[in-house]
């Protein structure tokens, strides 16, 4: 195998591949590798950690067809260290030479036969607008759990709801739900996709106009401009989140999103160790406090239009900031019932029915 490529293009593809390849060089070192295959003037890059697989293609100057398997991280580091310009990669049976100008690396390769067979999802693809789907992922993926002991909560539920796409994520402290009414999807669709994979999809979608999604019983593939990311589907049972969507909220405050985010950034200096930030909502507006009177205290008043009975409610400051940040409009609405039941954060205006962020309070 031998080919020439521009450093910038190759570095971009390898950066993605090295994030997908397994970071653990354990029983299967091949999983930490990126498989490079040259066919004519096209380089096919594949990396996998057995749960998630990336397949990308890159136009190159192909000199000799062939296959090589090399540590994704090592090759990524090498290519990034080289100056702008043409890079030549040439594989022998047991090594890969990377040449640029007067620099040359020669590094050992893995046995390409050790690399697992990877296939994209066999389902029929349907297309989605990249911008809208990417924004929905931005709003929802943040609420998924990182707790590997509750695997179901590490996933994002992709489901059909009244004929359109709904994304749901929760870590049991907060729940994010986004309906994308412009994406039509069968009501029977219901898959749980690892949030880690969707974070990568979100990156791929940046700058793209369209993406295709294919689903089968075991896996889902996202195809963004020919780059395919396939991930297994989680089979764990997802909690019944719909019960939480039907609450009525007697109290609501509408306040400026950016001003609230700025105040939260200040409050979080004292809301240490994910400590709570307290929100006092009255007819006079919104007062944020954090810290304790015995030690240190933060306090800031914000304008707001409030309806309901006066209430003071405390939230994990990070989770609250994440919810406010997900709102795309200038104003946010925070709706509450009482200090021990979930509050809802939505956008103000016409789009408020498409996204909601349900947040469990902390005990004061």
């Amino acid at each position, binding site marked *: 195998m031998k080919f020439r490529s521009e450093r910038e293009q190759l570095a971009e593809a390898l950066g993605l591949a090295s994030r997908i390849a397994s970071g653990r060089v354990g029983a299967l070192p091949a999983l930490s590798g990126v498989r490079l295959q040259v066919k004519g003037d096209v380089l096919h890059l594949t990396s996998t950690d057995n749960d998630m697989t990336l397949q990308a293609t890159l136009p190159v100057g192909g000199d000799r067809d062939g296959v090589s398997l090399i540590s994704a991280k090592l090759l990524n580091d090498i290519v990034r260290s080289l100056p702008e310009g043409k890079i030549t990669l040439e594989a022998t049976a047991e090594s890969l030479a990377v040449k640029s100008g007067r620099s040359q690396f020669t590094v050992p390769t893995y046995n390409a036969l050790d690399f697992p067979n990877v296939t994209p999802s066999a389902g029929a693809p349907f297309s989605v607008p990249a911008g809208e789907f990417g924004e929905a992922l931005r709003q929802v993926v943040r609420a998924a759990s990182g*707790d*590997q*002991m*509750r*695997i*179901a909560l590490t996933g994002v539920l992709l489901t059909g709801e009244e004929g359109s796409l709904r994304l749901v994520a*929760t870590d*049991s*402290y*907060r*729940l994010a739900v986004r309906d994308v009414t412009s994406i039509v999807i069968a009501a029977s669709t219901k898959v749980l996709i690892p949030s880690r994979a969707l974070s990568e999809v979100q990156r791929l979608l940046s700058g793209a106009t369209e993406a295709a999604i294919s689903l089968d019983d075991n896996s889902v593939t996202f195809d963004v401009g020919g780059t395919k990311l396939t991930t297994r589907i989680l089979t*764990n*049972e997802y*909690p019944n*989140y719909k019960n*939480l969507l039907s609450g009525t909220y007697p109290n609501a405050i509408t306040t400026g999103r950016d001003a609230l985010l700025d105040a939260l950034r200040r409050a979080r200096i004292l809301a240490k160790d994910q400590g709570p930030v307290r929100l006092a909502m009255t007819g006079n507006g919104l007062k944020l406090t954090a810290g304790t009177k015995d030690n240190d205290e933060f306090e800031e008043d914000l304008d707001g239009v409030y309806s309901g009975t006066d209430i003071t409610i405390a939230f994990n400051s990070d989770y609250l900031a994440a919810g406010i940040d997900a709102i795309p409009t200038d104003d946010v609405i925070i709706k509450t019932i009482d200090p*021990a039941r*979930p509050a809802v954060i939505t956008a103000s205006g016409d789009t408020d029915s498409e996204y909601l962020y*349900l947040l*469990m*309070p*902390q*005990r004061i």
Partner: protein
Amino acid sequence: MIARCSVKYAGRLESRLDEATRLIMVKADGCVAIHADGGAYKPLNWMNAPNVLTETEREWVVTNPKGETLTITLHEVLLDTSHELGEDPGLSKDGVEAHLQELLAALPDAIEDGLTLIRREHPTAIGPVDLLCRDREGRTVAIEVKRRGEIDGVEQLARYLEYLSKDSSLGEVRGIFVAQVIKPQAKTLATTRGLACVEVDYDTLRGRKPDELTLF
């Protein structure tokens, strides 16, 4: 005692420590250990209790009931001191099985979504089952909790399951072997016996507070 000494052992075999400065410990129970200035716990040579220590000015001879002898020749005594240490409270390990079991009893869904606790230390004639739970489908689940998952723990759970299967009031009983780390051999054996294996992170469990308000 800290002394420049040489040591000879005579018994099943013969060994010798040439002259050097060493720490010689004579414990209250009679054990004698000779340490170099390195290594965490293992002496260069030692004699377990019971034994008899005979002292002369230049030589200690430790003899055990089998007739084995440890002869310590003292060339120069640098420190000779004696302290009563009293009764030791024992080693308290963070993360012992009991605490892990206690945490999992409070948070059974950390083992499997939808799991609820029926009873901790469920008594049986062959010993208590660590956790007896019910799964989402209403089946009884016997759980054995270990700090380190090894083959003997799997065998233990298999015996409990065999016993519990005779109790018709429990219905179908399945088993889950839970540990912080489960050895590959133990996983293989568990699979063969039809038991599930779950590894749990003790620190994460400790970080979860049962009284936190949650949506689910």
